[in-house]
């Protein structure tokens, strides 16, 4: 075991010091969701589904999903919803401003686990943001996978995220099912309904299918039930969960789900590994 003041200084730096990231692009996605592209000093080296701790010194720090696929460049893409004090300050930042990044944290998805299988993505609301980090590499190597399907749902047409990206994936031959809970009198040329509704009618071979889910807490149980009814086995259903996190390194206690720590053991889990944890799903 290493000890000594010098080691502890380095350890403190490695654990809690954010690295500077420069904002190079900002785009409004909805009235409250803003896209950020950030250039880091070195590549993030992340897996799909991992997250970073984003901070503005003097304001605070919060866990934010990584939205871009893995790559060798220094890019980090995120979509941040304005929801509190820190995210308000983040929304006030301009291109050229700097924010603090530490991470990546968590387990993430390994796309190699999906090779040769039909892949079904189910995204609810902001869940599309982290799932995009997995959809991107899967679509880029589509020939390594079977049929790729994405069900993406949100509350109403004004809340749909990554509209251009959804068009691009559709053009690339991915089956993209776009849904809203209700049109609320806004123009909308796609479907109306919950993300569970297309599942019984999907053309899928349960033996060959792997599913990846991310959405609001209430979504998981219903989607998993619908997939189970089609015969997709629980060890082929991956869920990307959300919890409160303050440290990212398994110490602060906020993200604990029964005996496991979402920040380290997750946030991506095989559902079969969660089935005995009563706190995992609502």
């Amino acid at each position, binding site marked *: *075991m290493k*000890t*000594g*003041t010098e080691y*502890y*200084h380095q*350890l*403190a*730096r490695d*654990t*809690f*010091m*954010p690295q*500077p990231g420069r904002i190079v692009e900002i785009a409004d996605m909805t009235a409250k969701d803003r896209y950020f592209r950030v250039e880091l000093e070195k590549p993030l080296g992340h897996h799909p589904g991992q997250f970073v701790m984003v*901070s503005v*010194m*003097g*304001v*605070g*720090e*919060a866990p934010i999903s990584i939205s871009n696929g893995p790559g060798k460049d220094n890019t980090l893409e995120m979509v941040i*919803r304005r*929801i*509190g004090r820190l*995210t308000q300050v983040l929304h006030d930042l301009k291109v050229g401003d*700097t924010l*603090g990044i530490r991470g990546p944290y968590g387990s993430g998805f390994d796309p190699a686990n999906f090779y040769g299988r039909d892949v079904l993505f189910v995204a609810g609301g902001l869940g599309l943001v982290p799932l995009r980090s997995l959809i991107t590499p899967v679509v880029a190597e589509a020939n390594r996978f079977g049929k790729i399907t994405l069900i993406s749902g949100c509350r109403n047409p004004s809340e749909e995220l990554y509209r251009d990206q959804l068009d691009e994936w559709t053009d690339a031959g991915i089956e993209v099912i776009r849904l809203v809970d209700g049109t609320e009198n806004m123009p909308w040329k796609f479907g109306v309904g919950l993300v569970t509704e297309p599942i019984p009618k999907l053309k899928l071979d349960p033996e060959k299918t792997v599913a990846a889910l991310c959405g*609001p*807490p209430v979504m998981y149980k219903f989607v998993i039930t619908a997939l189970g009814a089609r015969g997709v086995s629980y060890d082929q259903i991956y869920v990307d969960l*959300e*919890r*409160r996190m*303050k*440290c990212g*390194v*398994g*110490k*602060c*206690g*906020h993200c*604990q*789900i*029964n*005996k496991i720590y979402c920040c*380290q053991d997750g946030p991506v889990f095989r559902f079969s590994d969660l089935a005995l944890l*009563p*706190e995992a799903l609502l």
Partner: protein
Amino acid sequence: MSYYLATQKEIVDWIRRLAAENRLYFPEKHGAASYRFTRVGPGSDIQFDHYTPTVVPPVKLLVPAREELLHFRTDADGKTEVQPSLDTSFRIIAGVRSCDLKGIFLMDLFFREGVPDAYYLARRENTAIIGYACNTPCDERAFCAAVDSLDHTEGADVYITPVKGGDLLVEVKTKLGEKLTDGVDWKPCEDGAARRIGAVTARPEPFGRTFPAALPEISKIVEKNYESPVWDKHVKRCFSCGTCNLVCPTCYCFDVADDLHLDVASGNRTRSWDGCMLPHFAEVGGGHNFRPEPAARQRHRVNRKFTYLPEKFEHGAACVGCGRCGRQCTSHIDIFDIVTDLIQEGAR
């Protein structure tokens, strides 16, 4: 390891000498009945007897209520420099009872595991501990023997046991302990180990409260009774104030927040105690709370002490039986009673 025999007065004089040259904390009486680990000064009252556990356990000197993680300053060009804030100053904690030694031992495990915690470990490495054995239970709330912490001495640099005849047996356990006792003129004691055993066997039996099941069974019982009316029974009186978390020697959950100084250019990132019994502990941005009911929070807390952490760290219990949570709770909710009820419920 070496043993000495010393009188009460010799030990008190030694503590005062150490305190004159070092930052030394000792459980001093405050008000009518409460004790606090207080920095010893010339006027401090140092006495080992008539002790009830301090309101806050000594391990919190290593995990302060609020501590700086980073400090930063932004210069006129808008460039921000961030540096870690690390406390490597030396301190001595004296008069630490076995339950609290066990608490420190468990915190050592928690903070060393996985990504080690620089802040805790830097403080821990620069802390000397003088332990003191309990030969009688401190009060009616103690259940240290029931969770195997009564004889915990690991982590102490010097461990003192009152022995037959009124003298104190001093056990020097580490190199740092040798340094602390360098130059003392106490009587060396050849049969120290035997005298210590003598003191242990002379203790009352049972020592404090005991559970109606053995420790390894208790973990299984708590886990098995995940759904149980016991979780509603005690929590009915709970105000979700989090006092049980704050006074617990093995609670270490924290919140992180930033402070901006009045110059609007400098500030710090701090962490402060948080508690899983507090209503918003598991609430995420947007307002969803993963543990909204007090009963779910209490179940989480009891499971952390008796199943989650013991399983993760392969250690009997993460509760040291100090009785603080029951002693300090406004509603007299006592983890001992909850676990006892679960054992009895499970036996039905």
